[in-house]
């Protein structure tokens, strides 16, 4: 019996979403990096995180990288762009958290504007997963940045009308957030399409579990999302996927606990970097299009993995 490679063509493809002036995410017509049987015109985009207020609780490994820019989101974003060669920035509007500093939508929108003006790469803007506050904040962001193509999220079922309407009005892509469930993800897409959000302005955030903290759920949900989109050709699932992974991996005990406290775990900085890079790589293999990342070394490792995955004989 001689060997014939069992090649499989997909009947669907993922929509391409334009972010910023000319950034492109999605567009693949095959499973992640299956370049022997399909095309993946845009490599997954790595968006490096910037916060709009200092993060003193972060583990040392990431705190020391951003110490000099922690109280200046513009300088922080420029550092990621110029020094770490980020593909994009994801501005996490942590200051707006109603359980935290509870900053106003106006103040947050000002920050968005000054960061957007200072960089040449695409910008994503993320709220704090407080549905009511995110609705106010992200509406204001859309209004302040019309025609900018800045994706805003997370949008969930509770606030999709308010944010969706603003995004339509000002032409922003939106990132729909659902809780690790294929059907919920589809339902939210359907709701936003019914509302009138164009299909090529939708990105999905399926919830990201870090390595050791639910990564396998996320992995399988994303595989099933892609099977629905590509094999079954379900056009309500053909949206690019974004994984907001850095806040999850750097929260994990294994990224934080010192070698003194857990002597068998080895160097804490190596662990933290790998927790992020391995989580990201696993997501690359299950279908991500946008990775929100934090540590520059982890970014470099994942970029090399992407280049490696693209090299096929």
């Amino acid at each position, binding site marked *: 019996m001689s060997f014939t490679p069992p090649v499989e063509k997909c009947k669907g493809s993922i929509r391409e979403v334009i972010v910023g002036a000319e950034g492109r995410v999605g567009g693949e017509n095959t499973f992640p990096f299956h370049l*022997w049987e399909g095309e993946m015109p845009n490599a997954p985009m790595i968006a490096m995180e910037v916060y709009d207020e200092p993060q003193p609780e972060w583990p040392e490994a990431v705190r020391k990288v951003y110490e000099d820019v922690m109280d200046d989101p513009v300088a922080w974003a420029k550092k990621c762009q110029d020094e770490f060669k980020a593909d994009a920035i994801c501005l996490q509007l942590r200051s707006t958290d109603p359980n935290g500093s509870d900053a106003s939508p106006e103040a947050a929108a000002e920050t968005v504007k000054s960061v957007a003006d200072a960089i040449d790469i695409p910008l994503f803007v993320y709220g704090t997963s407080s549905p009511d506050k995110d609705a106010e904040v992200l509406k204001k962001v859309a209004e302040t940045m019309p025609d900018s193509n800045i994706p805003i999220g997370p949008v969930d079922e509770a606030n999709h009308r308010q944010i969706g309407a603003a995004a339509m009005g000002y032409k922003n892509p939106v990132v729909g957030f659902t809780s690790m469930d294929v059907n919920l993800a589809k339902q939210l897409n359907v709701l936003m399409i019914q509302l009138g959000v164009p299909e090529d302005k939708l990105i999905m955030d399926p919830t990201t579990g870090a390595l050791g903290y639910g990564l396998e759920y996320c992995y399988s949900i994303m595989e099933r999302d892609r099977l629905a989109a590509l094999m079954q050709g379900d056009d309500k699932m053909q949206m690019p996927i974004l994984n907001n992974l850095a806040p999850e991996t750097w929260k994990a005990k294994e990224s934080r606990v010192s070698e003194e406290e857990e002597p068998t775990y080895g160097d*804490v900085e190596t662990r933290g970097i790998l927790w992020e890079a391995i989580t990201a790589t696993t997501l690359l293999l299950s279908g991500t299009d946008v990775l929100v990342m934090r540590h520059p070394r982890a970014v470099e490792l994942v970029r090399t993995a992407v280049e490696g*995955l693209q090299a096929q004989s």
Partner: protein
Amino acid sequence: MALSGLEIFKLLPKTNCKECGQATCMAFAMQLAAGKAELDECPYVSDEAKAQLGEASAPPVRKVTIGAGDMAVTIGEETVLYRHEKRFENMPGLGVLITDQMDDGQVDTLLGQLKDMEFNYVGQDLRPRVAAIRAADGDKLAALAAKADEQAGAALVLISDDVAALKAAAEPLKDKKPLLYAATEANFDEVSALAKELEVPFAIKADSLEKLADLGQKAVDGDFKEVVLDPSSTTLGDVLKDQTLIRRAAIKKTFRPLGFPTIGFPCDMTDDKLQEAVFASTFIAKYAGIIILSDLDPARVLPLLYLGQNIYTDPQRPMQMDEGIYEINDPDADSPILVTTNFSLTYFTVSSEVEASKVPAWLCVMDVEGQSVLTAWAAGKFVADAIAPFLKKSGIEEKAPHKKLVIPGYVAQISGELEEELGDGWEVQVGVREAADIPKYLRQWSEN
């Protein structure tokens, strides 16, 4: 084509002799149909049945065991391409490369790590088990293999181009089932003959899938079952491509020449140690059976072991935590008492937020068969008349006698009833709905 359990049953002796290890011939037939047993395990099967069943009943990816005792690694027996379809069966074996270029100190350090390294995660003990010994010279290969067996009890991969060297190293250790690496186009007959003589598994290696399939066909023709494939992928993209096509051919086409587990060497792909770990993670997610690293730095092995566990856990059966009281941040008699369910994801989310809050707390985890808070509540498992007896017998009252209990915000409606069920002066407080809000809640709790 695969046969159903019933079709297979018709061809069996139907004597229920139990010698195959199953209670009945029917049970054995079901195991065969599921690809979990081999026909050879039935001592009385007729030649006619063998001919009909042999091909159909073998698992699409053969089972291979390397090593013996606690350190043995079993790989293969896989039946799906996507873990949600059923589950991935056998977690990959992680190991380390030991070469004749290393000095004794280096070898001793690596073997010491291999012997002692073990991490407990969600109730499972995870560890690297494999020593891959690479040496050109027969004496050196034999000496290092003997040492790895003696000092670490490791599952062995013996690497040499010289068949005489493989023989010298494998013969004294043949009961430990070392993997001979590797049979190539040039020496297939010699290496496979040695594997047959010693009754040990062997690897086949070629630089294209076509050539690998040719060697695989020879292995099938020679009736070899314990074979491991090395497609010699040099880039990460080829790793993905080769592993995917091998698995797809085996599962979807029942293509026997590639119906074996695989071995990969991220240790040979880069000099950057962190990059190597990232490459290794691709082998883990994408089907490899044995994965060889260049050393055993725990900070790099730990995430890889976790990843193997995550990917190979059964998606149909939620991971569960043991019922009991979990102490977080060193709690004392005045620390808050929280209660939640034993769904591992619930537990991890809650415990990591409690930990991050730096507030000492008692986290009482109740067995509800691994369901989340809302699901268990809806199923009548996480309700007042179940939670109260659990808390009473948990012993929490001795540890923290203040009788204040915080319940998840999602089950606020049970607070009154739970207070009644607990009686005895207990006060039930409604906590937050989202884990992310726990730190703030706990800080406020401890200020009051």
